[in-house]
């Protein structure tokens, strides 16, 4: 066996009195794609930053990291500057902010070449053009003189990759490189990274929370939990016969299917939307010109029956959130009608009397509560919609009942929101939606920000509540997997239109529309036979 490209021995990182990484050892072979998996706080990013020598100020580092046999931790800062960018390239999660906004993309790619190889500026620009071409940004279409804000997220991530591989480093570290991207964009970036490894003998250390991504790309995986590597194995082995219980929980959670019961009979329609058009006023093109109108939703029609769970899938900017806002009366549609039970509204904002039957749960468990109010007041807020809202003790009872329905306790009503974890906050958000007994809850990316194990618990809770409260859901998400696990029917949205619509199993199993096919194909998947083995082996 060839000597390892990167060998991490007994790495430990201590930040602010907390052991972020404990005794981590792993070894990456030349030309290997090595996956590091784990939930947030598992120490996977800190491991990468420790190798790069870019830990936050005040962090303590122990152990060793050898790149082609040379101990990186023995190098001084000046020597490490010579390693970073030349022998190890690194790309990060957030492409929107990872590039300097005031310098052109050409200059930023060329910079790597100039500082390390002393290449002349004109030569560096030529190589930069070639590298950008390699990552799928041909200079003819995406000139070197573009600024980052003129590119999309996926394109910016390609620029990041171009500058990381400009000097053909021995190792590329990618920290959640596709987490912030849409699924079709993600597929392109993953393809690109796989191709780059095949180009030469570069190794790739791919850090992600998404096991499916690793199943497709990596040949070996280390699973991290609370700063420790709990299991390292070849990819297929890991999926087929993992040894550590945490790996098992992670795998189970990522393909979690909540228990669902069929709804009896053919229920009455609850919400119907007909030929809805929603527009946004854009910025004025000139000082005195009329503002341009952007149509975010174009002629959407659908129905949700009582107690039904319907998914709405689409990539960022497709209009799915705008549609939700119009249904909730936050935005007046330009045309079309919205009917809820007996009441209907055509071509105007949905009135408060209709809204009491609908509530919403948002994505961000941290931003969706006023930090200055107690939980009781936060959960009671939707009572504002009722003319005869309960007061005093009755109000408190209703809040407590809602909290208990989502697995919280009466004592939690007196606390402030910062005292809760992300998963608990999402439960409280569901309690807030539940408190006025709505018939429909819109879940707008409601589990997207949660770690897989927490996500599985919330999905179970939603399935339970649906049965116990007779709720209908409109489940909005970019994540096909989650939608598949919890909905009866699914709608696929693109550019403001619903392009495909049908029972979830049919749409996901045999997509009819090109775009749905593209979405389903782009979604990274753990080969089903691997998990069948796992189930059989249990």
């Amino acid at each position, binding site marked *: 066996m060839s000597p390892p490209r990167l060998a991490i021995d007994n790495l430990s990182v201590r930040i602010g009195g907390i052991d972020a990484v404990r005794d981590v050892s792993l070894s990456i072979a030349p030309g290997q794609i090595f996956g590091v998996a784990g939930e947030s706080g598992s120490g996977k990013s800190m491991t990468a930053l420790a190798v790069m020598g870019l830990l936050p100020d005040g962090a303590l580092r122990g152990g060793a990291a050898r790149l082609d046999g040379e101990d990186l931790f023995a190098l001084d800062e000046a020597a490490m500057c010579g390693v970073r960018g030349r022998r190890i390239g690194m790309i990060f999660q957030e492409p929107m902010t990872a590039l300097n906004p005031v310098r052109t993309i050409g200059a930023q790619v060329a910079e790597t070449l100039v500082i390390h190889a002393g290449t002349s500026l004109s030569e560096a620009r030529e190589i930069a053009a070639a590298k950008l071409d390699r990552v799928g940004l041909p200079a003819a279409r995406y000139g070197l003189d573009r600024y980052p804000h003129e590119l999309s997220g996926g394109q910016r991530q390609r620029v990041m990759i171009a500058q990381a591989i400009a000097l053909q480093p021995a190792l590329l570290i990618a920290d959640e490189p596709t987490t912030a991207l849409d699924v079709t964009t993600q597929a392109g970036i993953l393809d690109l990274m796989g191709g780059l490894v095949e180009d030469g003998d570069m190794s790739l250390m791919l850090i992600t929370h998404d096991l499916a991504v690793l199943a497709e790309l990596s040949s070996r995986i280390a699973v991290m939990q609370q700063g420790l590597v709990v299991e390292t194995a070849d990819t297929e082995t890991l999926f087929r016969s993992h040894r550590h219980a945490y790996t098992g929980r992670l795998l189970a959670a990522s393909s979690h299917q909540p228990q669902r019961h069929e709804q009896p009979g053919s229920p009455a329609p609850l919400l119907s939307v007909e030929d809805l058009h929603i527009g946004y006023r854009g910025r004025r093109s000139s000082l005195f010109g009329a503002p341009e109108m952007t149509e975010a939703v174009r002629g959407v029609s659908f129905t949700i029956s009582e107690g039904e769970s319907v998914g709405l899938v689409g990539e960022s900017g497709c209009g799915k959130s705008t549609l939700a806002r119009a249904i909730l009366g*936050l935005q007046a549609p330009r045309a079309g009608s919205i009917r809820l039970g007996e009441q209907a509204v055509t071509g105007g904002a949905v009135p408060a009397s209709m809204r009491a039957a609908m509530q919403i749960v948002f994505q961000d468990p941290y931003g*969706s509560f006023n930090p200055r109010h107690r939980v009781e007041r936060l959960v009671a807020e939707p009572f504002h*919609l009722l003319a005869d809202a309960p007061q005093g003790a009755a109000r408190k009872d209703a809040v407590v009942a809602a909290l208990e329905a989502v697995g919280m306790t009466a004592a939690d009503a007196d606390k402030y929101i910062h005292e809760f974890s992300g998963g608990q906050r999402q439960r409280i958000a569901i309690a807030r939606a539940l408190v006025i007994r709505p018939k429909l809850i819109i879940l707008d990316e409601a589990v997207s920000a949660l770690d897989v194990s927490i996500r599985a618990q919330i999905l179970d809770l939603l399935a339970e509540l649906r049965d116990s409260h007779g709720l209908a859901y409109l489940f909005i998400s970019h994540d096909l997997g989650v939608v598949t696990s919890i909905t009866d029917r699914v709608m696929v949205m693109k550019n403001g239109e619903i392009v495909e619509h049908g029972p979830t199993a049919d749409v996901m199993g045999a997509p009819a529309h090109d775009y749905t096919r593209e979405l389903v194909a782009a979604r990274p998947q753990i080969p089903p036979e691997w998990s069948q083995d796992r189930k059989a082996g249990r």
Partner: protein
Amino acid sequence: MTARLPLTLVVGLALTAVFVAAALLSLVWTPHAVESLNIAARLQPASAEHLLGTDHFGRDMLSMLMVGARTSIAVAIVAVGIGMALGVPLGLLAAANHGGVIDDLVMRGNDLVFAFPALVIAILITAVFGPSAFNAILAIGIFNTPVFARVTRGGALAVWTQEFILAARVSGKGVVRISLEHILPNIASLLIVQGTIQFSLGILAEAGLSYVGLGAQPPLPSWGRMLADSQTMISFAPHLAVLPGLAIIATVLGLNLTGDGLRDHLDPRLRRRR
């Protein structure tokens, strides 16, 4: 909260408290009456009788400084009050109407007032109505308004993008109710910090205006006027210039340290990390 107060906050509050206390005390008692002129006892050095000496009319410097503190602090506080009373509602309104006509109008109005420094406003008012301490208050108050409007709008816009505002809207709450119930409490600390900063700027501005004769008029003692009066005697009685200057510096320093300390103490981002 049992968190330790930052050192800057403690020092700042202490300095500020000294001068506020001196100003309040001057309402009921000063070592000597500031109206009593005693030419025979002019320009005396510090003594047991006059702790900080006397000025060119034989008035007790300590008493003058105490009454001067009252003038400065009163002018600055009222001017902050005017700025907040006008600026905060305008800022809330602009943020609620983000991108709309009202927002545009408020922001353009802001830019316009920014083009009139407090001194220029004072010049205009004085040219027309004659000089007085009231003019100084008005000029500084007008000058404060766009500052508070801008800070309020900026803070409010950041809060408006939070999902809990959407949640409140889903609950059927209107713009006014959301502004008062959700926005204002979340930008209160921002406004308190800005208030202390404008307070200290007000003290400086009042001193400047009184120095050039556009603010407090004789016989009302004010730090700026004391400096103006001392100027011709600076070569042989420097204490007349040094003492009011140090009083201004200490008060402004106290307020600025308080503002900085409050910012560190109240900033929830910093608090969460603790």
